[in-house]
């Protein structure tokens, strides 16, 4: 999943996977914090964001 997305030009680090048990609330918070920081640092990925159809 991650590999092909990155292969077609989605910057590495935008897609994350984690295994978190429902009992691991602190891990969940940590992971979300970390991912948010990392993705924010990459700035918005505008090339794969559709706001309206672009056609001729």
């Amino acid at each position, binding site marked *: 999943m991650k590999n092909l997305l990155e292969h077609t030009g989605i910057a590495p680090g935008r897609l994350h996977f984690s295994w978190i048990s429902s009992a691991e609330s602190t891990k969940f918070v940590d992971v979300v914090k970390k991912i948010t920081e990392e993705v924010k640092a990459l700035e918005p990925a505008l090339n794969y964001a559709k*706001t*309206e*159809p672009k*056609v*001729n």
Partner: protein
Amino acid sequence: MKLIKIDKKSLKEGIDKLKRTYGVFGPVREKDEFEFKALGAAEMPDFSFSNTRMSPKAIVYPQTQLMFTYSLNDADDDCRILKEVPMDERPRAVIGIRPCDALAFPLVRRNFDTPEYQDTFWVKAYEATTFVGLACNVPCGTCFCTSAGTSPFGKEGLDVLLVEDGDDLFAEALTPKGEALLETAGWTAEAGGGAEEKITALAATANEQISSTVAFDNIKNREILELYNAPFWEEEGFSCINCGTCTYVCPTCWCFDIQDETYGKSGVRMRNWDTCMSPLFTLHASGHNPRTKKVERVRQRFMHKLKYYVDKYDNGIQCVGCGRCVRLCPVNIDIRSICNKMNNFDSEACKCETASS
């Protein structure tokens, strides 16, 4: 018949002049194939093509056309009111369209511009367009225009017909629109004597090179159900993968699908080319689908082009013989064989078993 001669060296000058008045479209090489494109300031139509891969229908009838925009924000005065997307109504000129593709426009017009209904998007674009044809000196093996209502030098649907003769082009204005275009381009030098004879000779040579034909003289007299229930559909439709290639490359396929796309509080209504090869084409809102089998969809396409259209308009088949579907069908379903099969079909004589599906 007034013939104009254009020295190919002065072609650029004329086309540059045209670009001031018209949006100019022409065949250009794109990757390994030719396509009709809007020509940029420095671009020239490339006449070294046989025909373009896609038909030029998109110039008047784009694959995706934005029709309306709307707001869903209650604070807006025009909330939930469809607003027409403004169209580019500037005059446009298509330079180098082949006679087969040109014939497709009056043919499609029978559907889009009737006394009861006018498709304003299509009609406006069509009326803004001047069609400058380029006669086919060397047709392909898959061309069958001469049995589909036109010919390599056919004039129907054109405003100007260009004929290539070595370093020269002969131009004949066929309509007032065409005359205006030649005037604008500054192409006014009359061709000397002998031009007409030359064109006649070139046309005869081109006609001779058309090696394939379709016959549909019997189709009109047959009962719809006789053809509809013919056993050959199963065999002929077997290879079909139900992609949309034949319909999308076809200059005369006109079906479309309307879609709304909403983004937050605003949206657009658009139409996209649709294809009768897709099961979705006939899926009812109830969930019922009258054409669930691929062979039914294959039959539909050919019955529409070669029977229903013939019956409805009494004006030939809904095909101009460009051969694109023959060349590009991934599984080699050939409209020429199917048409001839429909024409020669004899339900009395046919004792062949209906193949099981």
